């Protein structure tokens, strides 16, 4: 006794046929044991002989489009439980009743949840978003000069291209270390992180605009980026490798610390660098993004003597360095 899984085109759910016969005929005609409504399948497409439990035999009945097993065209071959055949646009998997299935994916394991993050709908949506994002940025940054369509096209393509390359790199790692590429999951993940980081820097920007001075915008941005990058690397490793939790944590932490450290070191080295022009916070934004009230001119001027005191200190600091 065998069970045949019949899966039509993308997006349709498979049906399962449980059969007792020794010889099973599959095709479009009503006299078959398994009838499949697929115009690319012959009336009588293949016959399957399962009389010998140790070695099943499949024969193509001289069909127009042939039969594929693991992407190779066959006319007659032996198969075993779990093998997949493609006829027309339909995929068949044949199991015996004792076939050992993979254990269920856990709803409580992040890894297993991520494996399911591969639906076509979300992928299309994300790719559209990642293509649109740089185009919107270009449009909003224009000062009125005409923007040529190719500018948008190049921006959109390079944005998609970057995500593709990143996802492909992870995917290659997965193929090597786990023999599964999971390209779609990785592409979705990459784009989501890209979008989240853009959104976050926008939030930082607006917050910083409302509260100028204080911690530099650059620093806040770097902290967010480091955290996001750490999470991204952690999830990428989770999907593409079989590394232990501890190793994944160490690697992503190293990436975070590396990024923050590089920023801190460059920032520190440039602190005393002489700048002939003031590097003030010159953000001005649409009034809709300004949520706070202002202070009086007198109140603002009362803070200005501190500027001179700090200028004196800055003149001393760099002096000591000479």
């Amino acid at each position, binding site marked *: 006794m065998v069970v045949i899984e019949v899966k039509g085109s993308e997006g349709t759910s498979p049906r399962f046929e449980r059969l007792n016969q020794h010889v099973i005929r599959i095709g479009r005609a009503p006299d078959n044991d398994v009838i499949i409504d697929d115009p690319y399948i012959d009336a009588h497409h293949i016959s399957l002989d399962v009389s010998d439990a140790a070695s099943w035999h499949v024969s193509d009945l001289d069909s127009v489009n042939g039969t594929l097993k693991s992407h190779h065209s066959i006319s007659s071959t032996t198969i075993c439980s779990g093998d997949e055949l493609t006829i027309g646009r339909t995929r068949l998997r044949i199991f015996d009743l004792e076939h050992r299935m993979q254990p269920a994916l856990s709803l409580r394991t992040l890894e297993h949840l991520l494996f399911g993050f591969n639906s076509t709908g979300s992928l299309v949506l994300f790719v559209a978003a990642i293509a649109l994002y740089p185009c919107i940025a270009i*449009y*909003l*940054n*224009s*000062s*009125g*000069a*005409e923007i040529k369509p190719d500018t948008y096209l190049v921006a959109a393509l390079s944005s998609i291209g970057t995500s593709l390359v990143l996802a492909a790199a992870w995917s290659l790692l997965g193929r090597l270390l786990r023999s599964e590429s999971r390209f779609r999951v990785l592409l979705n993940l990459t784009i989501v992180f890209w979008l989240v980081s853009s959104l976050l820097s926008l939030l930082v920007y607006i917050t910083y605009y409302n509260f*100028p*001075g204080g911690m530099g915008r650059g620093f806040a941005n770097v902290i967010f980026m480091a955290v996001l990058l750490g999470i991204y690397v952690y999830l990428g490793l989770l999907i593409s490798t079989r590394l232990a939790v501890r190793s994944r944590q160490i690697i992503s932490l190293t990436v975070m610390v590396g990024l923050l450290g590089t920023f801190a070191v460059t920032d520190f080295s440039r602190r*005393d660098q*002489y*700048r*002939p*022009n*003031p*590097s*003030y*916070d*010159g*953000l*001005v*934004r*649409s*009034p*809709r993004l*300004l949520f*706070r*009230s*202002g*202070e*009086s*001119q007198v*109140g*603002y*001027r009362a*803070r*200005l*003597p*501190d*500027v*001179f005191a*700090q*200028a*004196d*200190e*800055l*003149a*001393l*600091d*760099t*002096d000591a360095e*000479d």
Partner: protein
Amino acid sequence: MPTIRSAFRLTILLWSSALLGQPNGGAQVLFAKHHASVMQIRVMDRAANNKSSTGSGFLVDGQGLLATNYHVIASAIDAPDKYRIEVLLRDESVLVAEVKNVNVVSDLALLKVELPQAAVLTLATKASLKGDTVYSMGFPFDLGITVIPGTYNGLAPHSAANRVHFSGSLNAGMSGGPAFNEQGEVIGVNVATAGNQMSFLVPVQDLKDLMASPTPDPQVPYSEILVQQLQKNSQRMISQLLGGDWKTVPLGGAQALDEVTGFLRCWGNSKDMNDSADKRPFYATRSCQTDHNIHVKQGLSTGKIELQFYWLESTELNSIQFYNHYERIFSRYRPGNAGRKQDLGNWSCEEGFVTTNNAADELTKSVFCARAYKKLKGIYDVLFLQGSVSRDEQAHMIHFTIAGTTQELALAFTERFMESGIW
């Protein structure tokens, strides 16, 4: 064509040789009489034992007192361990000079050499008239002493420091040399050129004032003297500004200041609406500034005051696009003077959202920055910037920079500027 061109060149040559031969009876007499009192001043690098820059100077009293420009000897003031000042005599012998007094603002210095009983130049007591012939003497480009005739054209009308407009060709190295009237009296000291026969002299009155002022105690470092002079100068200029006419004039949809006082000259610019290729938003700017910098030393100038008003509006751009464009302008203001790391500290800035006087709900982004001078304690450059942030597709920016001022003066000016009714 070539024939015409060479004929033209010939005319020029004939004319100029005629010029050299004729009134220079005056120049020749003057030169013969006074050139012994004009000397080349050399700033010598002590370690290299060679000259690092040269200028000119002239004897003003029988005890070996020489007048020259401050900028000629500025590096020796700044780094006396590295440089010494030498005076080259006619017989190619040299004398070491010491600095007696300086005025960095008018750009004058008095040097002392051991040279008794030398011929002294007389300082003019009578004012010259526009059109008078003036002869300037000096050592251009180390080429030996030279006399150059030109015309007196009065005091430069809008100058922040007193300057005589001399129509003649001064060249590098002539700085500090004397300019004579036809009676052979000194009427000014060569100081600068703007090219094309546009040159400037320090009026002789400034030299007389410096000679009459008490010689500073040699124990007091020159940096303190410079600080006092710069403070006094900034005090003079800011007081003049504060007491000026703060009349506003329209600029786009806002107000700007007119020429507050004589030494501020304003220039305007706006978008060419007929240039259809220029898709940027409409802008109108008004920029008012002083015309000269005080040379403190090589690479450090100061004293410049600049006010600027900027109107920006757009009907084409949406609010986000407009503010992106506005932000690019707002975040790129620069000070009007320059300096180097060894002379200036880094800028310190304070930002805030400040209400305006005329509308309580109108906010401005305000930025105030200052930097200190490392060797001139108490002297600062300041930059102030205010831009509207409560309007949709309109923006108004006001800005000033003052170089070489004090905290007190800068804050007094900031208050007056913020309250001037431009908003």
